[in-house]
């Protein structure tokens, strides 16, 4: 799936001198990424209904009804496979697709350069500079691509 690409909104990373580049990633290193899809069109209003307390209860068995659109999931599978990535798991109800592949394949699939960075506390982690891009045809369908930026995300609150 080559052709025009678009930036994935909210994927731009700015380091502002807090972290510094250590070395390029090993192109052969295998990593896993989680692709998150949007909700199917029929459930697009779910969020507002929940906040207003008017949403209909959904059981885990029915979660597919508020999950991903099967056609959109298939389009992402095709995109992943065309970039040599392996589908390591998918869950239409959870709107997630887990893909595995070498750093090099991830870089070409998502238009980034992966590298090791270190922050002021000495944590070292794999990350990228700039922003993730995806094929134009998947614009809006892909909500997030997680796992290409592996900095510590959170602290315990105790």
């Amino acid at each position, binding site marked *: 799936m080559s052709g025009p690409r678009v930036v*994935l*909104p*909210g*994927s*731009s*990373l700015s380091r502002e*001198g807090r972290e*510094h580049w*250590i*070395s390029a990633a090993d192109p052969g290193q295998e990593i*896993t*990424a*989680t692709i*998150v899809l949007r*909700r199917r069109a029929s459930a697009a209003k*779910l*969020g*507002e209904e*929940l*906040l*207003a*307390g008017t*949403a209909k*209860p*959904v*059981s*885990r*068995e029915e*979660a597919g009804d*508020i999950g991903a659109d099967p056609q959109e999931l298939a389009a992402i599978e095709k995109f992943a496979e065309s970039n040599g990535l392996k589908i390591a798991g998918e*869950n239409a*109800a*959870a*709107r*997630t697709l887990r893909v595995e592949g070498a750093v090099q394949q991830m870089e070409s699939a998502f238009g980034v350069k992966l590298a090791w960075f*270190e922050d*002021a*506390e*000495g*944590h*070292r*982690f794999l990350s990228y500079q700039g922003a*993730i891009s995806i094929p134009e045809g998947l614009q809006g369908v892909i*909500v*997030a*691509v*997680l*796992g290409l*930026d*592996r*900095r*510590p*995300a*959170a*602290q*315990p*609150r*105790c």
Partner: protein
Amino acid sequence: MPIFERRITLPGSERTEPRNAQPIGPVEPEQEVSVTVVLRRKGAEPVMPQPGKLHIHLTREQFKLLHGADPADVAMVEQFAKKYQLTVKGSDLAKRRVILSGTASAMAEAFSTTFVCYHSEITGRDFRARTGMLSIPMELEPFVIAVLGLDTRPVAKPHFRRRSKIAPRAAQGGTFTPPQVAALYNFPAGLTGKGQTIAIIELGGGYNTSDLQTYFGGLGISQPNVTSVSVDGGQNSPGQDADGEVMLDIEVIGAIAYEANIVVYFAPNTDQGFIDAITDAVHDTTNKPSIISISWGAPEDSWTGQSQTAMNSALQDAAALGVTVAVACGDNGSSDGQGDGKLHTDFPACSPYSLACGGTTLAGSGGTISSETVWNEIANNEGATGGGVSTVFALPSYQNSAGVPTQPQTAFAGRGTPDVAGNADPSTGYQIRVDGQNEIVGGTSAVAPLWAALTALLNEKLGSPVGFLNPKLYPLNEAGFHDITSGNNDDGGLGYYSAGPGWDACTGLGSPDGTALLAALTPGTSASASSGD
């Protein structure tokens, strides 16, 4: 000319042997090592704003001149680097640091240390470590505060709220076991969480069964059923700082809802790990948790937009599937520890689909609360409840009538946190057991599992999960809550936020009266219509 011959140890640089790791050999001498040298301030400490006093904020440039590093000190570090064949990669006066890089052997000589390569049993990765003290030339001693990055062992960076052991202050009301807190909050009697499953999300640390046996045995409670689930390779890995979090969460829940199944989802501390763990718990068709407890977070603006969107939509799934998600609001007051003169909320607590849990200081005994105020021990360096108004998430409709102010610095009409509160002050904290030790721990980290446990009791009694609680709680008009009206979570002298009647950005609707809350949520009752203080 400095000669850099006499050396002195760098205070506070001591490192012990890494835990849970095996030495596997020397570090390759030619390996590139990069370090950050932190310098002292040139001038005085910046004046911290005081509540009620006019404070003039400095521009970044003024700050650099007044409170940054001395250019002469940076020049001295540059000479030192040259002598030891290190390269200066960059320096920043305002941030008071110089970044040096060089080979491992040059670094070892420059700071008088030796490196050993270790294999971590926890992460499965190799890392570089050193032990003992660093030394630096006398010429650098007056102004070098720290040298960071020589050692790359995995670091959990908890801002633990263990009660200070050095200077115990006059206790307001002593500390509590979780059942004592449940009694003060009038949790409904005769309920055990039977038939309920509570998920706990952990991004590090672990539990060991012998500590749990000792702890629950000491409380005279049969040990709850605790199992773990691995997410993205995360494992139950006791022996880390984050054990305090894991044990607090399990012990608070297990001491109150002791017949509930507790399932701990261990994931790596990355946004992927965090979001995958929540998604896995929400959609877990084997364990089927109806409640998720999350005591991890980070300031709202430290997240990328895409991970915030993904996390929020996973929490939306939880709400849709009737899973209650209790989330700690942070322990660093209205700044959330950012120290940039701005107000910050903590994420994922500030997602509109989270039950955001704030903290109080609680005194009382038996079933009687003698006082309860907003947790703010900033003056004693023991934290304060997070809480405030999001700059990302819009005001949800369930908060339309709650009186949430617009964000004071941006005027954004955002989601207000917390929704609810509970005891969190370490000085009135929870007696728990961690890594073979009895400890007193607090933090909003205790409040999320406290509400998770209460929710399990409600679900047990009501016969079906209460699910996404927020739209149900706000119309109750304070029925089921102790409204906390005294105190503030001001950090940094910005003057925000204060508690008051009804919802506020320190304690939300308040701390629970569990029995009254059960009554108010029982279908067919009209507890909500007229009650409230």
